[in-house]
Every structure is written in structure tokens, then in C-alpha cells.
């Protein structure tokens, strides 16, 4: 019997492909990420807490988490609606619209940032009407939410669409024959099937929004305590040669991202399991 870490296979190339992958992964991702924790480990617990609980840092965390949460919620509602319309209705231009949903994935964040600022500033195409209503969109927390909504837009649409496509019409027909009206069928039969996908999409959009930098810095105005997001604060600290401060704030941020990643993995694993047994 052959003894090794992998099961026997007639195919060659495990050593070279695995070796190269592991080396490349370590050099590019794992070792650099570890330096963040090494840099933070140089701080005492007291110093660390002093940095991450200072008012300006707390304000930026509140803004980043709050705005990301609102944006992800907006995207959950509209993402579900978009997925439904794109999957269930047919109208001229549907295919093009479906493709356009990917724009925030493909558009460089700096371009998104200046475009949204131009549109939502007080003299912009949309901003001027909001200004009349007394709403300040750009250079306010609302601007941060707008930018984060833009970059998170595709996630819920793209997680819900395949589930909606795979859904059996038979269950809807069964509900209809049993006397449920359309709303009841939707809310009690269809929606429960879509909710796991919506939650996964929500978590992905939230996680992306939390780390987002490029699209936000142009539209937010970057006022400390008011419209300063965490990634911007990290850069500010770095530019002031406060490497330790930057590392400490980044470590908290990274820990939050890892927790989210874990949750997303669990959600995806669960929904895959759910589909497998169904």
C-alpha cells in the first residue's frame, strides 16, 4: 500500500502543481498577511486599546459598519426585486440590463467614485433635484451609502438568480391549486427558498462595502468624525508615519472581515447541503 498525504492517482504533476501553488500562496498572501499581526503584536494591549477606542477611530468604525449595513440592506431588497424581474419577466432590453448588473464588479472604483460624485453633487444631474428637496447627497454620510450601494449592487442579484432559476414551478402551482393567492404563494412558498441566497448576498455585499475605499473617498468629503471611513483613516495614519496606528486599526478591520468570511462560507456550505438533499 502506498503511503502519502494524497490518495493514489495515475495522473502526474501533483508535486509540482501543489508545490508551486503553496509557495505562491505563501509568498503573496499568507506571509504578507502575517506581518500585519506581527506589527500589531509589537503593541501592548493598553496601547492597542487606546488606538482603537480613540473617538476618531470609533466614529470611523461606526460610519463604516453603519453605512455598509444600510447599503447591504438596500441591495437585499432591490437585489431580490431585480433578480425576480430579470428572471421572471421578459421585456425589451432584458439581456442587456442583466449584463449591466455586473458593471459595479468590472468598473474601477476610482471611476465609480468620480462618476457618482459628479452625478450626486449639488450641481449634478441627480444631486440638483435632491438639493431642492433639502437633501445633501455628496459629501455627507448619505454619499457614503450611495457609493456602497453602487459597489454592492450585483451580489444579491447574482446569488438569488440561480436559485430562482432552479425553483420548481410545481410548488407554485400546488400552492395555487390549494387556494393560495399570488402574494401568499410568494411570501410563504417562494420567499423561504430565496432567503438563504439573499442572506449570502447580503453578507457578501456587506463584506465588500466594509473594505471599500476608491468609490467612497471622492463622494464622502472625508471629514474626520463625520464622513471618514475606516480604510481612509488607515491611509491617513500611514501618511503620518503612524505605522503602528494604521496596523492596529487594520487588524480590527481584518478580524471583522475574517469573521464575515467564515459566516459566508458556512452559509454557502449550508445552502449547498440544502440543495444536495432536496
Amino acid at each position, binding site marked *: 500500500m502506498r503511503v502519502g*498525504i*494524497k*490518495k493514489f*492517482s495515475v*495522473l*502526474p*504533476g*501533483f508535486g509540482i*502543481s*501543489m508545490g*508551486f*501553488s503553496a509557495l*505562491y*500562496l505563501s509568498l503573496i*498572501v499568507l506571509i*504578507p*498577511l502575517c506581518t*500585519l499581526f*506581527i506589527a500589531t503584536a509589537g503593541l501592548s494591549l493598553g496601547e492597542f486599546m487606546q488606538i482603537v477606542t480613540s473617538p476618531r477611530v470609533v466614529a470611523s468604525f461606526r460610519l463604516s459598519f453603519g453605512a455598509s449595513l444600510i447599503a447591504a440592506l438596500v441591495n437585499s431588497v*432591490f437585489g431580490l*426585486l431585480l433578480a425576480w*424581474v430579470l428572471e*421572471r*419577466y*421578459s*421585456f*425589451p432590453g432584458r439581456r442587456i*440590463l*442583466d*449584463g449591466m*448588473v*455586473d*458593471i459595479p464588479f*468590472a*468598473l*474601477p*472604483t*476610482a*471611476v465609480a467614485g*468620480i*462618476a457618482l460624485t*459628479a*452625478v450626486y453633487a449639488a450641481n449634478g444631474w*441627480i444631486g440638483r433635484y435632491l438639493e431642492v428637496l433639502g437633501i445633501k447627497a455628496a459629501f455627507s454620510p448619505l454619499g457614503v451609502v450611495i457609493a456602497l450601494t*453602487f459597489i454592492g*449592487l450585483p451580489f444579491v442579484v447574482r446569488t438569488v438568480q440561480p436559485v430562482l432559476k432552479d425553483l420548481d*414551478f410545481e410548488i*407554485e402551482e400546488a400552492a395555487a391549486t390549494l387556494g393560495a393567492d399570488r402574494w401568499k404563494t410568494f411570501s410563504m412558498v417562494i420567499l423561504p427558498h430565496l432567503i438563504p441566497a439573499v442572506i449570502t448576498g447580503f453578507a457578501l455585499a456587506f463584506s465588500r462595502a466594509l*473594505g471599500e*475605499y*476608491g468609490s467612497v473617498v471622492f463622494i464622502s468629503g472625508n471629514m474626520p468624525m463625520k464622513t471618514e471611513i475606516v*480604510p*481612509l483613516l*488607515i491611509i491617513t495614519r*500611514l501618511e503620518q508615519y503612524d*505605522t503602528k496606528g494604521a496596523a492596529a486599526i*487594520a487588524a480590527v478591520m*481584518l478580524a471583522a*472581515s475574517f469573521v464575515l*468570511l467564515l459566516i459566508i462560507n458556512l452559509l454557502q456550505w449550508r445552502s449547498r447541503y440544502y440543495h444536495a438533499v432536496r
Partner: protein
Amino acid sequence: MSITRTSAVPNSTGEPAVVRWLLTGIALTFIFLFLIIPVAAVFAEAFARGFAGYVKALKDPLAVSAIKLTLLTAGIAVPLNMLFGVAAAWAIAKFEFPGKNILVSLIDLPFAVSPVIAGLIFVLLYGTYGLLGPWLVKHDIKIIFAVPGIAIATIFVTFPFVARELIPLMQLQANDEEEAATTLGARGWQTFFRITLPNIKWGILYGVILCNARAMGEFGAVSVVSGHIRGQTNTMPLHIEILYNEYNFTAAFAVASLLLMLSLITITLKSLLERRIHQGRYSR
């Protein structure tokens, strides 16, 4: 214009026309406000001073050097990540070994990391006051605030693109064809180039296109490591930022329009390839 149900939906289960109109109307308004208007605004601002102003902005030597650096960066990051993607997918899809799920999760890690943190970790590693800083200074090697730093930060943020596309694709295709080739006496590279590569070429292209779009457009990570030296370490997105902060809006949007066109081409190719890859899956 009429909004009907897609042909697959049976008549017994559908919404009244008024609901269909309402939902579609809301969806279109949302897309219009968040996607179409900003995209149109980029072109409108770029051509605000006419075609001559547009061309002039793009012919500026600093814009040209930013375009060149962006091409160079993508030219380094994309092939390396492609090579990694193929190697990782081969190891993961073709063999069984313990810890495979952990490896797959680790490959996705860069997507969970904020671009700014991606830049920061390389400053902490290679910067003057970083871990390897003193050694690099002694040997006069410059990584941060220089092209190598930009390249490596870009490699980090675009790391998973090819691998995460190829792993599920190759797992789906299973090992039968490769095993047949090997047992018939084909050597390893022969099997790879004649059997595996033709099966995964569209998947590779798909990953490469997405990887390239992100590599050319990356802003946060590159912004941290670049140092913003004009004509030397300015990529297109960084150049856009500088022009914009100088209130040179026409020029900023002119350069931005190039990246916008790249992203429009990217999503078009992406949806074409998706159809091709899916057809391939079903016909096999």
C-alpha cells in the same frame, strides 16, 4: 412595450399585469439611477470640452505614462495569477488530499481583505520601516513607492480570479479523459496540453478577463504602495485621482472613460463566455 412572463412560467402562476409593470418599473428606475446615469455622466464629462479636449487629455505625457504603467502592471499580474490558477486547479481538482477545503478557502482570502489593508501589509513588509526594510535599504532594492510594489499589491488583490473559476470547472469535468490519456502512455505535459487545456481554455479566458479588469482598475491597494510619483509610479486610477483633485475634471473623466470602456468590454465578453462555458458543460 409590453412586459410578459418569460416563456418558462406557466399561466397558473403569474402576477397581474399591473404588478409586473410596477415591479419592472421600480427595477428599471433603480438601474437607471445607480448604473446608467453614472456611466453616461463619465462620457458627458469627458467630452465636455469637445473631442479635441478629450484627445488632448489622453495625449498628455503623464496620462500616457500612467496608461503604460497600468498595462505593465496588468502584464505582470495577470500571467502570474493565471499560472497559479491553472496549477492550483490541477492540484485541487485532480487529486484527493487532506486539507483541500482549507486550501480553497485560503485562495479566496484576498477577496475578503480590504484593498487598503492589502497595500498596508506590503508597506509593513517591504517599507523603509517594515520587516524587510533595513535589508532592502542596505541592498538598495526599492519595492514600496516603486513599480515592484505596485505589481505585487495588484497580484494580491487579483490573486483568486483564475483559480476560483477553474477549480469548480475542472472538478466538474472529472479525471476520466486525463486518466485515459495517461494509461495510453501520454506524458504529463502531453496530457495537459492535448486534453486538459482544450477543456478549460474558455474558463481560463473568463478568469483572465476578470483578473485583467481588476488589475487595470485597482485603486486602494496601489494607492497605498505607489507614493504617487507622477510619470513614474502613477497608474491610470491614481492619475484620475490627481487630475480630479486638481479640478481638471475633463482630463480626469477622459482617462476614466478609457477604464469605463474596458469594463464595458469586460462584462460583454463575460456574458458571452458564460454562455459558451455553460453550453460546454451541458453538451459534455
